[in-house]
C-alpha cells in the first residue's frame, strides 16, 4: 500500500510550510530546527530554549463546576505536563498554563463529600491534622483542586515548577484575560457529574 513518504528536503523549508498552517491542538512552532544544519532524521529532537518560552505557551481555562475532581485533575495534569503534545520531553517544561475557575463547585461522587479525608502533619509528634472534603471546601476551596493536581504531577524540581503553572480561583472570574485563555479540550466523557 503506497504511503506518503516524508519529504527529505531541507528541514527548514518543510518546517516553515507546515508550522504556520497546521493548527490541530496546540502544535508548537519548532524554532530550533529552522537552521539548515539540523540533522532531523538521525538525532532525536531535544527542545532548545526558544522552544519552551513561557511567554509563548498556551493558556487554557476550565470551569470546575460539577466536574468530577479526579477526572478533571487528570486532564489538567496532562496538559500542564505537556503529555498531549508530540514534542513532549520529560526533562523540559513543554506544557501549557491552566486556569481553573469555580473551584468551590467541584464535585465528587458517592459519599466522598463527607468521607474523603485530607491529612497534613506539622512535623511534631501528635501533629496530624485531619479534615473532611466538606470542611476543607468551606475553609480553602482552591486547595482541593491544587492537592489533586499536585498529586498527579511529577515530584521533583520540574514538578514543582509545573505546579506553578496551575492557577485556581473560586468564583467565575480570573485575572488572566490578557493571556487570552482558550477552553481546555476535555476528552473524558464521564467528567461531568451525572445527576
Amino acid at each position, binding site marked *: 500500500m503506497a*504511503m*506518503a513518504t516524508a*519529504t527529505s528536503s531541507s528541514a527548514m523549508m518543510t518546517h516553515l510550510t507546515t508550522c504556520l498552517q497546521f493548527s490541530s491542538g496546540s502544535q508548537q512552532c519548532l524554532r530550533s530546527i529552522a537552521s539548515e544544519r539540523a540533522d532531523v532524521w538521525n538525532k*532525536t529532537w531535544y527542545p532548545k530554549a526558544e522552544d519552551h518560552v513561557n511567554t509563548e505557551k498556551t493558556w487554557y481555562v476550565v470551569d470546575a463546576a460539577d466536574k468530577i475532581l479526579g477526572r478533571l485533575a487528570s486532564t489538567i495534569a496532562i496538559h500542564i505536563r505537556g503529555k498531549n503534545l508530540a514534542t*513532549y520531553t520529560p526533562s523540559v517544561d513543554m506544557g501549557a498554563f491552566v486556569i481553573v475557575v469555580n473551584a468551590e463547585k467541584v464535585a465528587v461522587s458517592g459519599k466522598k463529600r463527607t468521607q474523603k479525608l485530607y491529612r497534613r502533619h506539622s512535623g511534631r509528634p501528635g501533629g496530624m491534622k485531619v479534615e473532611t472534603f466538606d470542611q476543607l471546601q468551606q475553609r480553602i476551596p482552591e486547595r482541593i483542586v491544587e492537592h489533586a493536581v499536585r498529586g498527579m504531577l511529577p515530584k521533583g524540581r520540574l514538578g514543582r515548577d509545573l505546579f506553578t503553572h496551575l492557577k485556581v480561583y473560586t468564583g467565575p472570574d480570573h485575572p488572566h484575560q490578557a493571556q487570552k485563555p482558550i477552553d481546555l479540550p476535555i476528552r473524558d466523557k464521564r467528567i461531568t457529574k451525572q445527576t
Partner: protein
Amino acid sequence: MNKKEVFKLAKGFRGRAKNCIRIARERVEKALQYSYRDRRNKKRDMRSLWIERINAGTRVHGVNYGNFMHGLVKENIQLNRKVLSELSMHEPYSFKALVDVSRTAFPGNKNMTSAPKKEGLAILV
C-alpha cells in the same frame, strides 16, 4: 590509572571528589560504572521517549499508540519508532496520512474515550 588521569575524569564533581585523590578515585570508578550501565539504558530510554511522543501525536488524531502500531504492522510499514516520532513532530501532514493508513488497516476501538454505560444501581452513583 594514575592520579593525573583520575583527576582529569573527575572534572565537575562535587566537593572533595574533584580534588582529593582517595575520594576522587572512588567517585571516578563509580562514574565509569554508571556510564557503562547507562550506555545500555540510553537505548531503552530513547525508545520509550519515542513511544511517548508517538502516542501523543496519534492521540491528537483519535488513535492510541497500540492500535496505531498494530495497524502499521498489518500494512507492513516498517518505519521505526525514532522516525515515527520525528515525523509526528516535524511532518504533521505526513504523520496524519500514516495514522489514516493505520486506522483503515485496524479500526480498533471506535471511540477511544467513551466509557461503558452504567447499568442498574450504578446509575445512582
